[in-house]
């Protein structure tokens, strides 16, 4: 029996390794190729595998589309170096390190998921390489980091938008929170929602947590519904959220469940099917409603390539790319410090997602769109302008 105990212990150790690292080779490009001297490398740092893979894929679509429309800057070809952060905070740091140390990229786009961007924060700051997040909304991504920018709004605003929607539009007085506790994005957004909702005079009846990768939410839902809230705010990853809403319906919970921008992926609807119909979420722009010239160009190119309407984050990552190109053009050199300084000056930049101006933190100040799932599609409900 002793022998088998040793075997079992070895098994546990190995499993711990598997769980903590999930080490898989996932070179998506770039690495291994010898770059010609006349190539400019831009790093794309996204979850290609793991729990957040669908989000990463949407952003990669946007960057690749932008790259095909604008393949050159300063007379040189732009080469995208796509690295996989594997939906994992530890992997995210090493993926970013690889971009700046080995690939010597001049700028980085990404990542979907605030946690991964935050994990890369120190690396881009120390290397003085500017990074532009497309959809990472946690305020800590750019706070205190002169090298991290973003083309999206931040969660204090998003939390307020959803708290207002719950309190004023839905008429909810009691809200419950179910959050993905291992995600900085979800925990942050839940906090800002809570602050605003209480500020409006509402009450939080209960808070429940789950982990990324969990599949069974019945215990949390049963507990939460016992507190009889008028609305459930459930910020978190799209797959987990879709399963959560599905299980809520199966448990006979009729309380509306609302969430944030991460839900806007095709997988949310594929997995949630009928259960997510009528679900309301806050999101970034609606590309179809943008009036800029760039938006028309983006929409045309996207629909002819993918034959469906683009997600907001795809337009945002597209904008992150063209904004970096714009900064490189203005800097007139590949000096990363100069590119960073030009990026920081970005104002009234006309992108596919609308007009982008960065504030002193490097955050875009812009409106949020509230969307509803209707007939298997995300449909525009209303635009909320920023109060700042």
């Amino acid at each position: 029996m002793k022998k088998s105990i040793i075997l079992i212990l070895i098994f546990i150790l190995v499993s711990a390794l598997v769980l903590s690292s999930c080490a898989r080779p996932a070179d998506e490009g770039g690495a291994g190729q010898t770059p010609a001297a006349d190539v400019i490398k831009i790093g794309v740092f996204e979850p290609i595998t793991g729990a957040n893979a669908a989000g990463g894929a949407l952003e990669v679509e946007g960057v690749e589309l932008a790259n095909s429309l604008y393949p050159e800057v300063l007379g040189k070809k732009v080469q995208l170096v796509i690295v996989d952060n594997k939906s994992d905070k530890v992997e995210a740091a090493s993926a970013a390190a690889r971009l700046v140390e080995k690939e010597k990229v001049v700028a980085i786009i990404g990542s979907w998921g605030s946690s991964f961007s935050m994990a890369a924060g120190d690396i881009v700051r120390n290397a003085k390489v500017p990074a532009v997040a497309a959809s990472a909304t946690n305020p800590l991504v750019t706070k205190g980091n002169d090298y991290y920018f973003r083309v999206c709004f931040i969660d204090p605003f998003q939390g307020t938008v959803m708290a207002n929607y719950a309190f004023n539009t839905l008429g909810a007085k009691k809200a419950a929170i179910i959050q993905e506790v291992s995600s900085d994005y979800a925990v942050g957004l839940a906090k800002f929602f809570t602050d605003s909702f209480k500020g409006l005079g509402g009450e939080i009846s209960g808070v429940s947590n789950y982990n990324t990768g969990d599949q069974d939410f019945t215990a949390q839902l049963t507990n939460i519904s016992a507190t009889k809230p008028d609305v459930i705010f459930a910020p978190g990853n799209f797959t987990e959220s879709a399963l959560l809403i599905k299980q809520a319906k199966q448990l006979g919970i009729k309380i509306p469940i609302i969430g944030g921008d991460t839900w806007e992926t095709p997988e949310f609807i594929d997995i949630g099917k009928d259960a997510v119909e009528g679900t309301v979420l806050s999101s970034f722009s609606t590309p179809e409603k943008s009036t800029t010239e760039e938006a028309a160009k983006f929409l045309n190119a996207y629909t002819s390539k993918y034959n469906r309407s683009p997600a907001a984050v795809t337009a945002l990552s597209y904008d992150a790319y063209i904004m970096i190109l714009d900064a490189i053009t203005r800097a007139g050199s590949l000096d990363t410090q100069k590119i960073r300084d030009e990026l920081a000056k970005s104002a009234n930049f006309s992108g596919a997602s609308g007009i982008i101006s960065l504030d002193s933190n490097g955050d875009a100040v812009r409106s949020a769109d509230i969307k509803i799932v209707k007939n298997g599609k995300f449909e525009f409900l209303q635009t909320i302008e920023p109060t700042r």
Partner: protein
Amino acid sequence: MSLNMSLNTLLQHLTNGVSLGSLYALIAIGYTMVYGILRLINFAHGDIFMMATYFAFFSVATFALPWYLAFLVAIILTGLLGMTVERAAYRPLRNAPKISILISAIGVAYLLENLAIVVFGGRPKAFPAVDLFMDVVRIGDVAVQILTFVIPVVTLAILFILLYLINHTKTGIAMRAVARDHETASLMGIDVNRTISLTFGIGSILAAVGGIMWGLKFPQISPLMGVIPGLKCFIAAVLGGIGNITGAVIGGFILGIGEILLVAFFPALTGYRDAFAFILLILILLFKPTGIMGEKISEKV
């Protein structure tokens, strides 16, 4: 809020627990059976389970088979996959130290995971829904999905079929003989390779049934979906006494109900749900390594 919950809420929690537990039990049976016969912890079990869900997915999504045919195809393909894995990765190491086969099993697990990422892509897919099982019935205030009744029935049916197979058929006798001593068994005219191959085939079929049920309950499949259920069910198998099929079922139920009740009564500890399972494993190994139903077997040579 934790201790003064109403009876209805408690009943709902227990129903949820039984539902999750029967799923764990189903997958744990496959783990424990392979261990019982071969004394090999088939580390790749969770990944074979994952492959089964993809087979079912593509049978429905690409070949447009009706669900019952698709599930049958998936079960057969997974059985064949299990036998192929055995032939390629375990049979050449039959006479090597046990640890080599264990490492080989880990290799197979990685291979299958990465193969799935390359072939199927990293994005999650929606498992086909079978409307028949999806309906919800309400008993008083407790909501129960039809699937919740189906899974335990399937689990128990498989349990009895397996017990019959192992205890009352010729193949079963051969399996038990191989489990005891494969060299002597081969001297007695038992085709050891065939018996072991069959064991893997059956083990993989069990993984497939578990995978399909899992997919129906949690309709989201991805290449790494097998890792955590694989570990959880391994824990369930150890808890019940690894090698003992009835024990695996008991272990599965204890783990499932335990997890749900942990989240239900100690919401603050939700983040430690997986840790709970591993702590349970460590405690069992420390205090009762043979598990609940484990036989006192003396170390065989």
